């Protein structure tokens, strides 16, 4: 009995290891492909698509950077990401606090309406939004685009933060209230610090989304000096000679900041998911 158990256990863990390693290789391969291709010459790429490069061909990075005004694009993406993530975070938390810890007329209906806005695809909104933005003179401005991103991020952010705030025990708030704290103080001094993990989750998820967004950036940031990194990358495809290694170098540069942010925030990110965001 014991022996068969052990064999079964061994087989079990062998199967598990194999499957997990398989899945890991699968999820890493495209990234590997991007990295090795970025260092190959065009000729090398045609000859051998998946092998390691014979030597590191850095010229691809020059081609990618020079061709696409990389630093301006990078700055634009950063401004939009930081701006909209911060603004949406504050606004969403305020609203989420009301939804989670206050009673008021129309609460359920409002919450449901906001939730249902999560499914509105951005493409649907582009035409009317564009008309509106022109009327408000906000096309081709950071503020205008940040406003749009903030709006689009709000439903999910409110939903996530409301769920998290609900897990914070009512007693803490009651105690603070007896001590004479106003709601705003409770919000800043108790709710926000207690929600650090959830906030970090939200920041990571939202920052990723804004950084990677293509459609709105394409339409609302049309001036050359305002274009974002993703728009620059999407345009790599229609160059007059498709240089796959240089394209890959461009993709690689655009990807690195995200991976760095995640690796730094990973610990908090996972803690945030654990703490109520998923309940």
């Amino acid at each position, binding site marked *: 009995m014991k022996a068969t158990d052990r064999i079964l256990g061994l087989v079990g863990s062998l199967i598990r290891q194999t499957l997990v390693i398989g899945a890991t290789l699968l999820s890493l391969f495209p990234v590997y492909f991007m990295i090795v291709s970025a260092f190959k010459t065009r000729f090398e790429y*045609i000859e051998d698509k998946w092998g390691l490069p014979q030597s590191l061909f850095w010229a691809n990075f020059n081609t990618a950077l020079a061709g696409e005004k990389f630093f301006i694009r990078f700055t634009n993406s950063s401004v939009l990401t930081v*701006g909209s993530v*911060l*603004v949406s975070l*504050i*606004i969403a938390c305020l609203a989420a606090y009301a939804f989670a810890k206050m009673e008021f007329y129309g609460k359920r209906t409002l919450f449901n309406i906001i939730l249902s806005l999560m499914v509105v695809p951005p493409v649907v909104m*582009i*035409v009317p939004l*564009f*008309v509106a*933005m*022109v*009327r*408000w*003179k*906000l*096309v*081709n*401005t950071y*503020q*205008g685009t*940040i*406003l749009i991103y903030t709006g689009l991020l709000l439903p999910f952010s409110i939903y996530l933060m409301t769920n998290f705030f609900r897990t914070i025990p009512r007693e803490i708030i009651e105690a603070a209230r007896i001590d004479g704290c106003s709601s705003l103080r409770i919000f*800043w*001094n108790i709710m*926000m*610090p207690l929600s650090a993990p959830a906030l970090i989750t939200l920041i990571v998820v939202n920052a990723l989304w804004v950084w990677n967004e293509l459609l709105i950036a*394409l*339409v609302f940031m*049309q*001036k*050359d000096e305002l274009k974002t990194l993703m*728009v620059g990358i*999407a*345009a790599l*495809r*229609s*160059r*007059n*000679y*498709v240089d796959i290694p240089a394209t890959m170098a461009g993709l690689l540069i655009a990807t690195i900041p995200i991976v760095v942010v995640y690796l730094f925030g990973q610990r908090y990110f996972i803690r945030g998911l654990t703490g109520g965001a998923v309940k």
Partner: protein
Amino acid sequence: MKEMRLILILLTVVSLLAGCAQPSTPSPTEAPAEPVKLVIWWWGEQEAPGAQKWLDETIAEYQKLHPNVTIEAVLQSTDSLIPAFQSAAAAQQGPDIQYFWGGVWTLEFAWSGAIVPLDDLIPAEERAHYINNFERTYDGKLWGIGWYLSGNPMVYNPSLFKKAGIDLNDLPDTWDELIAACDKLNAIGVTPISGGLKDGWFGGWLFSILGRQNLDSEKDFMKASIGEAKFTDPAYAEWWERLNQLKEAKCWNADINSIDYQQGQDQFVQGKSAMIFGNDTFLKGWADIIGWDNMGVMRVPKYGSGKLADTYVVTAQGLGITSWSKHKKEAADFLMFTHTQDRLNAWFKYTGVLPADNRFDTTQIDQPILKQIFEWVVESAGPNLENFIPSMVDEQANFTGTQLLFAGDKTPAELAQLTEEVAQKWREQNPDQLQNFVNWYSR
């Protein structure tokens, strides 16, 4: 400390919000009367490498002559050229000068009121020098000016032809000879013709290059578009059958459906394929990579006997002035500047592409291949038919249809049927556009 930081963040956010809520932020377009700023959205570096360099130089020179004018040129990508301008038109805000392909690609915007006629802005005597004005004429007015000419020769690789035993003095000029050439090339393991259909555009080119051969004029295609002829009529439908013959004879690269237009052309430059349905705007760029000696140009082999079969497909890519521009006069002045002798010659020097102006000094053309192109343009220019059908028909029938043909999903007859159905759908869905098209047809 922590509290301080939170307050700071809050303050920043509040100030940001205040910035968002007030619609009265100053607009950059409301420039005072004296200094003039012109914005150009353009495309073309993608098909005429060197265009960017020329435009930068032209702008610099113009600004030197007109110190109060600043010009900003934004190069659009192929996929964003039309969508970006559509949204600008919806907003009545955007560039002063916009790049347009010919025919419907220009006139659809004339019809929607996004661009203005140039008759009052550019003197008739000047306009008379521009080539292919017919593509941009509607209601007796000219809605844009040609910039450069873009034609479609067949480009071949002489050394691969020689290797396969194809006589360079007797190039294939009928359909049977083309198919025979495919067999010879396949025998030595070379892809006869390469192309890329994934991003769609090449499907439109194939229509334009092959679809015309039984017909006499672009009017025939406008007629079918407005429903007075059918795309299923044999004269219109035959090209699907002919394209299918090439496919059956294994003339094409096997991966045509999974690569983009540009990658298809690249296979020729890499020496992997012997022929392409090319674009003469690319010739100089390719020559820079592989040398003029490794290229030759020929006319597209014939299967049909319509007048168009003997023409060399050519269109003028051009520029127009938007209806919301506050500086139409200045914009027109700049457009005329691009057509001054010195600029025309510089254009050819940088790109090897013919400018759309008959004042261009043709003695500059020294490459035999470019001389040949020039000769075809002068002697037998014919319309690019993609410019004379609704863009919906182009995309939903030509782009989609060629992909379906090569995927082996639809027969040529079914594809002719599809084209007719899309045209019918377009007529039903867009009574307004149809009316404009009818007016255009009966000009």
